[in-house]
């Protein structure tokens, strides 16, 4: 039987996050009293509630049939990589370099392939970005890669 795995895992992760948050808050922050709640009261209560809800999602799903979700790992990894690279490259490669590299990575999972297409798209998006953010909004950003 095909189980509803996305819900099982989703519920379990939520339950673990909830328990973790409640434990961490309970150990590190003052709970206080009902009259004078401390900073720990709300996070502990919410963490416990979340872990309860998470189990409530996961357990019934374990015995119930469901359709497996369409998990697209390649797109996931490459899009996240594109975002991370942009964040890391912006201070070093400047707006032009970071935009160009990010678009190249982002187009890797696209259905249309070919490096010429990627290059042209990266150049045009970089151009639009510079026009909008540098010339239009005058954001203070390094434009070109630092050579030193």
């Amino acid at each position: 039987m095909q189980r509803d795995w996305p819900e099982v895992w989703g519920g379990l992760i939520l339950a673990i996050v909830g328990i973790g948050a409640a434990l961490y808050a309970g150990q590190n922050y003052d709970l206080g009293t009902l009259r004078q709640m401390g900073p720990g009261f709300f996070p502990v209560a919410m963490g416990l509630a979340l872990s309860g809800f998470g189990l409530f999602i996961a357990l019934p799903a374990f015995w119930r049939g469901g359709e497996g979700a369409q998990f697209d790992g390649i797109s996931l990894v490459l899009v996240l990589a594109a975002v991370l690279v942009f964040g890391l490259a912006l201070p070093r490669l400047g707006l032009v370099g970071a935009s160009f590299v990010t678009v190249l990575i982002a187009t890797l999972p696209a259905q249309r392939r070919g490096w010429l297409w990627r290059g042209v798209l990266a150049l045009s998006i970089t151009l639009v970005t510079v026009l909008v953010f540098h010339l239009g909004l005058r954001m203070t950003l390094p434009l070109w890669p630092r050579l030193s």
Partner: protein
Amino acid sequence: MSTWESLLLGLSFALQPQILIYCVLGVLLGSFVGVLPGIGAMAAISLLLPLTFYMSPEAALIMLAGVYYGAQYGGAVASILLRLPGTPQSAVTTLDGYPLTQQGRAGLALFTAMISSFTGAMIGIVVLVVLAGWLSALATRFGAADYAMMMIFGLVAASTIGATRPVKGFAMIALGVLLGCIGTDVNSGAQRFTFGQAELLDGLNLVALAMGLFGVAEVIANIRNPERQKTAARISMRSLLPTRDDLRRIPLPILRGGALGSFFGALPGTGSTLSAFLAYATERRLSRQPERFGKGAIEGVAGPEAGNNAASITAFTPTLTLGIPGDPIMALMLGALIIHGIQPGPMMLEARPEMFWGLVASFAIGNLLLILLNLPLIGIWIAMLRIPFNYLYPAIIVFLCLGVYSVRGLTFDIVLVAGIGLAGYLMTLAKLSPALLLLGFVLGPLIETNLRRALLVARGDPMVFLERPISAGFVFAIVVLLLFPLWRLWRRKA
């Protein structure tokens, strides 16, 4: 000030060229993004939010509001032509809009969607004007306990009404509230969940959260989605014109949809998506030939489109008069206002009348612009639906990274977007609603502050929530909402 004087003040404010231009820009950008399937009003507002940092708060609010209701107009286009809802609010429109397209009557469906949206919005504006004065008078009697219970009611309503499994909504809200705890606790000064990161002292960045959940996650889910690769066929201008029979069918559904939408839009926790569903169900129930629905009944386009647009206008009532956002989009709007240094609430009508009434006037102007522009621009919107997603999403990624960076100038926030995007994508796989997470994130700190204040004043006695009439009313409503799914479950088994 009488209502007429206030409206005139608003109109003269909103018609200033430096405000009007942002209203036009907002509705155009909103339509543009709304037309694109998979990018809803949430993503549109969070993408454009950083651009508003360079404007006055009034212009920013008017532009973001324009983006919101502009996206509703645009959302219907993709629903009707491709059976891909451009926004979640227009998902119901696919039910009868797409069959009309298959019958070669796409023009009629588009025309009806626009005229219904416009009329629905106008009904919403009237209701908003009436309600706002009344609510802000009532709000002066609201205490901390009442605020806390009203917000909790909103959260419970948002996750139970219309949901098949409320526990999933509760979980997302609890997670959102937990994320909202991150940062410095305003009551005690303690630093919660910051793990020594200075970047987290002010809490998670709202824009980073919204971009990750609605930008990155939606891009990932759409890249290789075969549905998303469809493109639209051309239609002729002549096919936009309705026949006499169509004209006879649409006025009543529009009025009913507008009334329903106005009501549910103003309630906390319910919003334009629910209004559209209810309007559709109402039309089908009232119809003499319910079997026509789902096969291209024009009433099934008119009712929901009027409903979701009316709701998108009246949803501003609790946000602006009480400072309590009723739905996730309003939560984002409230977050935007707070970034601009404005705390909406009962005092706003008194302290900044030009902002409130200017916004109301801009609703009328913006909707008028939308209907005047969208009919001639329909060809452009269809051309946009012919752009493959492959060309669009790399640009979306670059823009959202820059947008997040522009808020505080920290690359930390861009890294955060990647992490939140991962979580958001996993949520869509498990069919968990990121919109409810955002609602919990914005309301969480407000609820905590008001709960703590109420209990402090009452010396720790929880009965305070039942002794105050307003608060007790909300407690009663919460109990009803929680018991209703149980009752339904019990009836099904019996």
